[in-house]
């Protein structure tokens, strides 16, 4: 039987082509199911991306005393950069640092007033530090308190982010839970619908199965082409879903850019980068589902 696998595949393609009208419903159903799943994936990616956007806005601003030389600041910068917790360090010149400071405290009129009263810019050059992970900020703050740094630092601010970060993590967890539950429901409904469609397709071909049995075909001899045909259906629908999904991504890309503003996020290239992760398991899933659903559906008609 295994020697004839090529013949089986050839015949399965032939049957697929000749029964395309019958398989159309199955294909459309699978496309719809996959499309909904991918829609949920997009939703999940966007949730994570927007949380990322917020996290990216978090940083530690370190304002040095005006008497600190640029060389000193740079040497501190390079020392910070090698820390495992640090994602990147940005250097700001004196006057940019003032602008940055004003921007950061734009909701705090008292501080702005105080600044205005001073004729001189009280700030020296500054560094803006971003950590790899939210929890790394604490470590970095502790390091900055060490004497080798502390003496040069005029002020550093890390707002009261902590509270905010906790909330952010909480709601991102919640969002993930909700998408997970919706995904499970969708997958479950998808499986049921695909099972039923395959069942109906095979039901309409029950007479063929009877004829095959009549000429002495064994159950596996009958089953294999049916299973292969369902797999072809599944793969066909899968490919078609991808072909439809990319234009869809291109269409929503401008909307996403608008939504995530200055955060440079491209959904299309995200899908390109994670192509195998996203579509690989869908492929495996669809193939397995095709096999199981066709085997279960055909079982009934193989008796006698």
């Amino acid at each position, binding site marked *: 039987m295994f020697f*004839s696998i090529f*013949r089986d595949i050839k015949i399965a393609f032939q*049957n697929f082509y*000749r*029964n395309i009208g019958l398989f159309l419903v199955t294909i459309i159903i699978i496309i719809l199911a996959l499309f909904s799943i991918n829609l949920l994936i997009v939703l999940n990616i966007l949730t994570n991306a927007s949380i990322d956007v917020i996290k990216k806005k978090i940083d530690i601003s370190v304002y040095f005393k005006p008497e600190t030389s640029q060389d000193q600041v740079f040497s501190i910068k390079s020392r910070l950069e090698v820390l495992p917790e640090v994602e990147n360090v940005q250097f700001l010149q004196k006057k940019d640092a003032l602008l940055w400071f004003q921007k950061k405290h734009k909701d705090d009129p008292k501080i702005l007033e105080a600044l205005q009263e001073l004729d001189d810019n009280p700030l020296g050059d500054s560094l803006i530090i971003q950590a790899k992970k939210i929890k790394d900020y604490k470590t970095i703050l502790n390091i900055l308190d060490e004497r080798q740094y502390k003496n040069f630092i005029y002020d550093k601010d890390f707002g009261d982010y902590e509270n905010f970060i906790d909330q952010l993590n909480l709601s991102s967890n919640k969002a993930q839970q909700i998408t997970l539950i919706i995904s499970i429901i969708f997958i479950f409904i998808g499986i049921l619908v695909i099972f039923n469609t395959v069942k109906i397709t095979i039901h309409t071909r029950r007479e*063929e199965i*009877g*004829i*095959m*049995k*009549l*000429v*002495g*075909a*064994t159950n596996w*001899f009958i089953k294999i082409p049916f299973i292969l045909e369902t797999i072809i259906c599944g793969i066909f629908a899968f490919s078609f879903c991808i072909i439809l999904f990319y234009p869809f991504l291109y269409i929503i890309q401008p909307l996403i850019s608008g939504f995530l503003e200055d955060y440079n996020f491209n959904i299309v290239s995200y899908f390109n980068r994670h192509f195998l992760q996203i579509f690989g398991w869908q492929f495996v899933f669809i193939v397995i589902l095709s096999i199981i659903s066709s085997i279960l559906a055909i079982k009934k008609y193989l008796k*006698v």
Partner: protein
Amino acid sequence: MILFKNVTKIYSSNSTALKNINLHIEPGEFVSIVGQSGAGKTTLIKLLIAEEKATEGEIIIGGWNITNIFEQEIPTLRRQIGVVFQDFKLLPKKTVFENVAFALEVIGASSQKIKKIIPQVLKIVGLEEKANYFPEYLSGGEKQRVVIARSLSHRPKLLIADEPTGNLDSINVQEIINLLLKINQFKTTVVLVTHNREIVNTLKKRVITLDRGIIVGDQSKGRYVI
């Protein structure tokens, strides 16, 4: 070739299809089974191809006692029997060639062998020109000839035809019967179920008459009596 020993088939308490049938058909015979509708003819055929199991008695085909045949052995049995039914039973999405090829693929024939045999059997039934037609483009008589070609292709020792001419007009009927006779000449045992009086009377072969599940006649050069 075929031996029925006290075979009874009861479908349900109010439907007894065959009662205590004793029957012996020799290899190479041509036997017609006649009887009115509901007499039990199709049931007899179904027992032969193990589509139904006898309620009582024993059935032996070619020395093989199939009374309690295992599910997995049924394909082996059917590969040795050619079956022709009234309703043609062709695979609709396969061409004439592929329909016949299917029976050969089932027995594991190589594709070279298939390519060699099919033109031969299609020639026997006079359809070599229509090898690439789909069943829907064939007439009833042609369809039935494809079925016969299919049941011939694997050289069965037994060919069973259940009212093969039931859906055909008289010219086609004669063609089919001639084919069956030709097959019989190649030493294949033929069992023909029919209620066509004319056919039976011109055949001048053995006739078994069934009536309400009982054999009421068995003549070696029989006529249609009921």
